[in-house]
């Protein structure tokens, strides 16, 4: 028998056995993919149309115009430069577009995709908009064509890669180029960035061994660093931005509270109205690739997402922080990764580490920078998940210092600055921790 025939017979054998195994293995409710799509689309539409609770259609239209022409570099709160209604409309709109692209490309609505969609929705409150994400998508799409592969294989780098949206917006509207030339150059730059992202992202993941959940954040940080270096070499530079809104806490405490309670309710519905499986979910370290939807089910994942949303919102309120665009964006991102690696056990040590850092260093615990550090610092959740809470506290403490130092190298063009920082922190800490653990053994 030839080798091909042997492999073929093994496949047949395994396929038969797999069917037998799969009949009785799943202990959770298997939710059909189209149902998960409808649920995510429902949330996107709720967020989008909730914008009309805050502003009139005319105000939202004007706000969207302001958002689209904003340079959008870190930190540009769309609540502040436009209005709350248009920021929410923008958030929901980008989620709808992402869901449409994913559905059109037949991608499973599992943990990674849920994380990507909510991350896009979150960052659409402070940096991503319909104009600046398209060239990134185009670049990744062209890469898939050159590779002669289906686009769905690269959809995650495409979605997460929109972190470089400000590169497009800043070149279009932030420098003094004539409008048409600026836009053409920006689209070219964005497409080029999108084109290189998939190969870089797949390569850089080994740098931190999956202990930095925002791997694309690290990739975009490096990519943004190169683009910014070239701009500076040609005499183009810019100051950082800090447009932050305040005074929204009463409204958004209720808004987010209801939203995340509904996540828990939907989760309970699909988990036979109990918390079965949640304990098992908490047992995962969360290291890439831990897809809770595949491993523990959609219901438990939604419960976890809702709980994380409530805890994150509570943390912001407890330290007297402001619930503005970037902070709510951070909360949305944590919620998204509640389907893809994060849970209460592995994010709380990071919060504690960041909180302790702010007690001793120069940043106020409720400043936007420190709060963003705390929320997005949970990119390092796999460290406490794998090695224990004390290492999570250490990682959080270290992350707070590092994240405040790395933004300058990419000039705020990478929205996932914490993912950039997290890559360095994980790559620095993990080898030390593992070597120490081996010595103890």
């Amino acid at each position, binding site marked *: 028998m030839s080798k*091909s025939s042997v*492999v073929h017979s093994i496949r047949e*054998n395994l396929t038969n056995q797999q069917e037998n195994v799969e009949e009785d*293995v799943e202990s959770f409710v298997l939710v059909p993919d189209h149902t998960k799509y409808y649920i995510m689309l429902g949330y996107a539409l709720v967020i989008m149309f909730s914008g009309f609770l805050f502003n009139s259609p005319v105000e939202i239209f004007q706000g969207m115009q302001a958002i689209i022409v904003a340079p959008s570099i870190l930190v540009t709160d769309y609540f502040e430069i436009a209005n709350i209604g248009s920021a929410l409309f923008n958030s929901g709109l980008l989620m709808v577009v992402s869901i449409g692209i994913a559905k059109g490309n037949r991608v499973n609505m599992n943990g990674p995709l849920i994380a990507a969609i909510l991350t896009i929705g979150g960052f659409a409150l402070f940096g991503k908009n319909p104009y600046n994400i398209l060239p990134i998508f185009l670049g990744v799409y062209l890469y898939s064509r050159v590779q002669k592969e289906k686009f769905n294989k690269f959809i995650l780098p495409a979605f997460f890669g929109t972190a470089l949206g400000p590169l497009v917006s800043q070149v279009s509207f932030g420098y003094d180029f004539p409008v048409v030339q600026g836009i053409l150059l920006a689209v070219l730059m964005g497409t080029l960035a999108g084109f290189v992202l998939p190969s870089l992202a797949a390569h850089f993941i080994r740098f931190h061994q999956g202990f930095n959940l925002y791997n694309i954040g690290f990739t975009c940080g490096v990519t943004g660093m190169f683009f910014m270096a070239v701009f500076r070499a040609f005499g183009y530079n810019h100051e950082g931005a800090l447009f932050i809104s305040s005074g929204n806490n009463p409204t958004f405490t209720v808004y987010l509270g209801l939203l995340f309670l509904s996540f828990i309710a939907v989760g309970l519905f699909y988990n036979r109205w109990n918390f079965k499986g949640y304990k098992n979910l908490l047992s995962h*370290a969360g290291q890439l*690739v831990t897809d809770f939807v*595949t491993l523990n089910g959609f219901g438990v994942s939604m419960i976890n997402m809702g709980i994380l949303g409530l805890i994150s919102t509570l943390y912001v309120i407890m330290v007297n922080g402001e619930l503005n665009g970037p902070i709510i964006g951070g909360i949305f991102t944590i919620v998204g990764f509640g389907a893809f690696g994060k849970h209460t056990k592995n994010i709380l040590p990071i919060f504690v580490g960041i909180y302790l850092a702010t007690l001793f260093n120069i940043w106020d615990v409720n400043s936007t920078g420190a709060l963003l550090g705390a929320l997005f610092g949970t990119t390092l959740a796999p460290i406490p998940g*794998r090695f224990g809470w004390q290492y999570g506290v250490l990682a959080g403490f270290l992350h707070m210092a590092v994240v405040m130092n790395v933004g300058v190298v990419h000039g705020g063009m990478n929205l996932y600055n914490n993912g950039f920082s997290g890559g360095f922190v994980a790559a620095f800490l993990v080898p030390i921790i593992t070597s120490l653990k081996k010595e103890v053994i």
Partner: protein
Amino acid sequence: MTEVQQKLIRVLNELMHYYFDLQMEDISIEILQGKTESSIIMSGYPSIVDREELKELSKQLNKPRQEELEEYYWNLVGTVDSSEQMNLVSMLIDSANVELDNGKLTIQVYRRH
């Protein structure tokens, strides 16, 4: 070396991690490469066997392959010393069989290129 072969090595690496974690000393490996599909068969004699764990492993390895994850994350497979990472293998394979027969643990995995 082709990317297909590199991915097979990663799967092999991850399976070997698993077997070493079970403190197996004599391990047999067979690799079959076809034009459009490949298979790895690994067997050995573990000193301690947890049947529930094997059932869980079988469940993990038979999760549906997800193309959207493979291109992005395959570089992680076989690089991390953690038994939890066996679920990474399922990203790269189409099906698997975990069998314990007279103390001999055999894992077969099959992958379409």
